[in-house]
């Protein structure tokens, strides 16, 4: 239990540092929030009043205090571009992105685990060369290029799937999945390539170990060795590596959601950055970093829970 407590305490410290980094990065912005709200035509006195009421004349440390206490008490402010409360806006976009992050992870793992294992058990033979070369090629293509190829193939040429837009899963689940499919595939293919490489090297490491040789020596069938001894031991590390890719996915969705006009968290971040919507930028990057950190924590804790050999603290 001590281990979990320790991790939670260090999580709070990291969260605090994340908030400072977020605030620091957005405060080197030359933009003026008051000017953005009032427009360039407003008179100087009203502008000065606005600055005063927004607290822009306070020292940075006081401004940080205002911001972080607002974030902690649920007063996330109003987006300058969308003229809407940031809290509900983020919740809605997070759900939309959650769908494609989950789907792409599912696509990636479904392909990567069999391919990686297949390559590992045929190490240095043509199966390994084929799978590893394909994976190497996969990690070298930018994901938005995957996106464009998929749009050309499945939307323009074959006309099977929509290439743009977002449908709320609450109102039309089938439509939601159809619209999320191509962006998820574009994200999933690159991730699949990366995870295939990881699965292969994990599996190669395991198949070289003593207990595998023992299992062979006592005459177990190769199939049983691979499944019950090899894969059972590889699945933990592979899941951990997959969990760590959540951060990568939350970076990639910015490009992919913009390409597919999928109005999720990535699309929102991009709009906020383009329009220099400072309150929205602060909230989005803080929330994304917090989500990434929390997922990593959950993956770590799950690993301890699942693997009986790890008993920490």
């Amino acid at each position: 239990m001590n281990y979990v407590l320790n991790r939670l305490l260090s999580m709070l410290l990291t969260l605090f540092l994340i908030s400072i980094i977020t605030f620091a990065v957005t405060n080197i912005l030359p933009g003026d929030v008051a000017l953005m709200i009032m427009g360039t035509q407003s008179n100087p006195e009203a502008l000065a009043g606005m600055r005063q009421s927004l607290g822009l004349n306070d020292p940075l440390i006081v401004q940080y205090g205002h911001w972080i206490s607002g974030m902690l008490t649920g007063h996330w402010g109003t987006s300058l571009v969308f003229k809407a409360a940031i809290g509900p806006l983020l919740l809605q976009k997070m759900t939309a992105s959650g769908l494609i992050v989950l789907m792409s992870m599912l696509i990636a793992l479904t392909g990567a685990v069999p391919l990686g294992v297949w390559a590992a058990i045929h190490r240095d033979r043509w199966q390994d060369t084929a799978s590893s070369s394909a994976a190497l090629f996969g990690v070298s293509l930018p994901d938005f290029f995957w996106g464009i190829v998929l749009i050309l193939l499945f939307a323009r040429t074959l006309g099977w799937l929509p290439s743009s837009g977002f449908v709320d899963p609450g109102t039309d689940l089938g439509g939601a999945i159809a619209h999320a499919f191509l962006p998820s595939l574009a994200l999933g293919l690159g991730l699949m390539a990366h995870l295939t490489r990881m699965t292969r090297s994990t599996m190669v490491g395991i198949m070289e170990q003593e207990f595998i040789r023992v299992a062979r020596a006592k005459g177990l069938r190769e199939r049983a060795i691979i499944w019950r001894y090899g894969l059972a031991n590889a699945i933990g590390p592979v899941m951990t590596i997959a969990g760590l890719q959540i951060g990568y996915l939350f970076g990639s969705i910015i490009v992919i959601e913009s390409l597919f006009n999928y109005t999720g968290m990535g699309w929102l971040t991009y709009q906020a950055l383009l329009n220099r919507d400072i309150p929205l930028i602060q909230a989005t990057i803080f929330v994304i970093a917090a989500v990434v950190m929390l997922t990593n924590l959950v993956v770590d804790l799950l690993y301890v829970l699942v693997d009986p050999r790890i008993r920490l603290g």
Partner: protein
Amino acid sequence: MRRFRTSKGMIGLILVGLAILIAIFAPMLIPAGLSTKMHMAERLHPPSLKHILGTDELGRDLFYRVMLGARTSLEIAVSAVGMSILIGLPLGMIAGYFGGWLDNVLMRIVDALLAFPALLLALTISAVLGPNLRNTIIAIGVAFTPYLARIIRGEALRVAQLPFVEAARAAGTNNLNMLIRHILPNVMPATIVQGTISLAFAILAEAGLSFLGLGTQPPQSSWGLMIQASRNYLDISAWTALVPGTAVALTVLGFNMFGDVLRDILDPRAK
């Protein structure tokens, strides 16, 4: 060098060499003005004898544009990775070698930075500073620094515990000398391997940033910008997307293969 004589090593070497040669010599080889000259009468022409890779939406020759894109891409990637090594190498070495509270403080900050997806951090910094060539380098350089610092710290920690370091300390080597003469040469292999792989990621990041309009700005020729511009013409001229896309893919593939082989040679513990 013999290990490069695998097919992977050879292909990687050729691709990287080709990309570097094109990046250096393209501006000298291309007839002056041909890459920027617009021919509205020859917009979106498919590949032909006159334009072997076709033309873009302004009638510019894609073969020349894509060659100039190599220069932008490599210039940004090399400078950005150079910058993150310049910051990450001393930070990682100091954290790993001294350990204790210094290591704790530095690695806490690095952990917090790692919670921000690299592309998100780079995009934000670029948007905040105002997108141009120099700020794209700074954005990617800063975003990659925590990764490098983490890896170099791990290496420095390992090296600092080796017997020869203890022996050097017993012989009266001071900390500065120890860091420069003993730790630095031993963390260099991992730094070179990680740097090469980071180059591949930096090229992808530059393409992504430029694709979103928050990286290289026109009229500079950049692969990400070319793919962005092609989006409106996908139906009639898919090659305007496929040409720069393939250029990115081949260059990144080259650096990845090169990095893999380098790792096999320099870092035999990794698989």
